[in-house]
């Protein structure tokens, strides 16, 4: 076995895993703040990436400008989605809310196909050099950028929840909405804000993946990959989501290598995370960092 090749796989896994972690974090954010399981998380990536691609190609905006406009658009998108679609569902059974987010997911996939077609579209090139060497390993420059952005977002989350007034209000709301309201926190605003932040952060991930692989409906598959990541880490733990994402990213790559070298079963890249998911849930049913729901009878 070649050590260099293995390290390369590990690095790729960490880079992709960091992106999974970012998406998983924004999924957990919505779940924690408003107890909604958002099956349309992957479509946030899709919508963000298409909007950014459209601004860059149809309007010929420079990358930074198109990117900023995309973020502004996604903020409004998240708020409107929450206020128009999800706010009326407060107090409805969980299954209804889940059906609605699945509906949203199908709707936005179809809408994007209708507006931008069914073929993958490449982003205009952003970097002069496609590949750079880091510690003897070949790395695509976009991957490096993606890693940097992922880490920046994670630090941003940490700062937001530790030091900002709104982060504190969100943590309070996640814990107990009634108590938070009795302390002057506006719960509807916290809900809207959590959807906005989640949409923006997912869109950033969407743009990064779009730059690497091109924009296509495959992006929404990230919404599915988020489930093993999030359940591994525990549904309500943001740190867990990051770790879960990294684990899934590494697992995929290692599984693919094992498959190619030894097993020859095929397609391990896709299923290995889900095997790991089942194993971990057998041992720790609430995920690695999740809160155990204790019921007194």
């Amino acid at each position, binding site marked *: 076995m070649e050590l260099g090749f293995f390290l390369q796989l590990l690095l790729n896994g960490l880079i992709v895993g960091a992106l999974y972690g970012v998406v998983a974090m924004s999924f957990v954010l919505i779940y924690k703040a408003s107890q909604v399981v958002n099956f349309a998380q992957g479509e946030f990536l899709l919508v963000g990436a298409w909007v950014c691609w459209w601004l860059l190609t149809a309007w010929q905006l420079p990358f930074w400008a198109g990117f900023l406009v995309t973020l502004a658009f996604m903020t409004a998108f998240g708020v409107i989605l929450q206020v128009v679609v999800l706010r009326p569902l407060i107090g409805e059974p969980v299954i209804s809310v889940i059906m609605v987010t699945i509906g949203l997911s199908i709707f936005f996939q179809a809408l994007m196909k209708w507006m931008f077609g069914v073929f993958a579209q490449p982003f205009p090139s952003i970097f002069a050099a496609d590949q750079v060497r880091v510690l003897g390993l070949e790395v695509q420059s976009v991957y490096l950028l993606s890693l940097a952005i992922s880490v920046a977002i994670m630090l941003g989350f940490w700062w937001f929840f530790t030091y900002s007034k709104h982060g504190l209000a969100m943590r309070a709301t996640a814990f107990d909405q009634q108590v938070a309201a009795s*302390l002057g926190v506006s719960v509807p605003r916290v809900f809207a804000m959590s959807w906005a932040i989640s949409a923006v952060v997912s869109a950033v991930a969407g743009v990064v993946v779009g730059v690497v692989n091109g924009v296509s409906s495959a992006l929404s598959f990230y919404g599915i990959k988020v489930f093993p990541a999030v359940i591994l880490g525990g549904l309500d733990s943001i740190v867990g989501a990051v770790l879960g994402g990294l684990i899934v990213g590494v697992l995929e790559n290692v599984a693919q290598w094992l498959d190619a070298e030894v097993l020859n079963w095929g397609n391990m890249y896709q299923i290995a995370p889900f095997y790991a998911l089942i194993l971990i849930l057998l041992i720790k049913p609430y995920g690695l960092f999740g809160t155990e729901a204790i019921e007194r009878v």
Partner: protein
Amino acid sequence: MRESVRVDAETPILEAERVSLRFGGVRALTDVSFAVRRGEIFSIIGPNGAGKTSMVNCVSGRYRPTEGRILFEGRDITRMPTRRRAALGIGRTFQNLALFGHMTVLDNIMVGRHHLLRSGFLRGMVYWLGGAQREEIAHRREVEEIIDFLEIQHVRKAVAGQLPYGLRKRVELARAVALRPKLILLDEPMAGMNLEEKEDMARYILDLNEEWGMTVLMIEHDMGVVMDISQRVMVLDFGRKIAEGPPEAVLADEHVKRAYLGEADEAVSEPEEAVA
């Protein structure tokens, strides 16, 4: 008559006018009226399931009365959402401790400052430029004052959920005080405490009332404490008001004696379990 909002020393800080609350067929409150004067300590007592917590929940906004009105400083707040009542100056603690268990004591108290922190999201992002930092320092000073007052300096960085019960009760009080409320609602502040802790808590409540100028509306089961520190007491039984007045007068009241000691026929029908 009271439609024009005029606040003077005579206006009660809180008025409940013929408040009724029903959950389906269950009548939690029936036609309860009372007024709390500015600057007093007013207690609500009554047997388990009498509707005390329901009454407080109507004041704080958790429940909306089926009938009747609630006025705060002469202003109708019956339909106002909870958080706006908090911003007006109504703070509360909960019967079953409701601290944010994973947060530090300091963060718990800072949530209580939420409506007083004016810096919005964007100003917060340009932390050093927008004056958000200056604002936070001023807030921290006041929070420290509250921490000193309630003698919880030694646990300020501790995770709230891991503190012993008596301390958690004090942290919850600190969080409510951090709101700087004009009226503070205390739902059984001394439940489950030993004698020494109760004495401390009684002292804090008196200080809040006298030195910090807060009007106190309190539910408490410990008769000794209620009689010692409240100016006036209201007694609820099965959702109805059966007495109101100074502690001694209320204790001497025939209806009250009957509600608490129970006569032969009523003792049978009295619900045993607590309905919170």
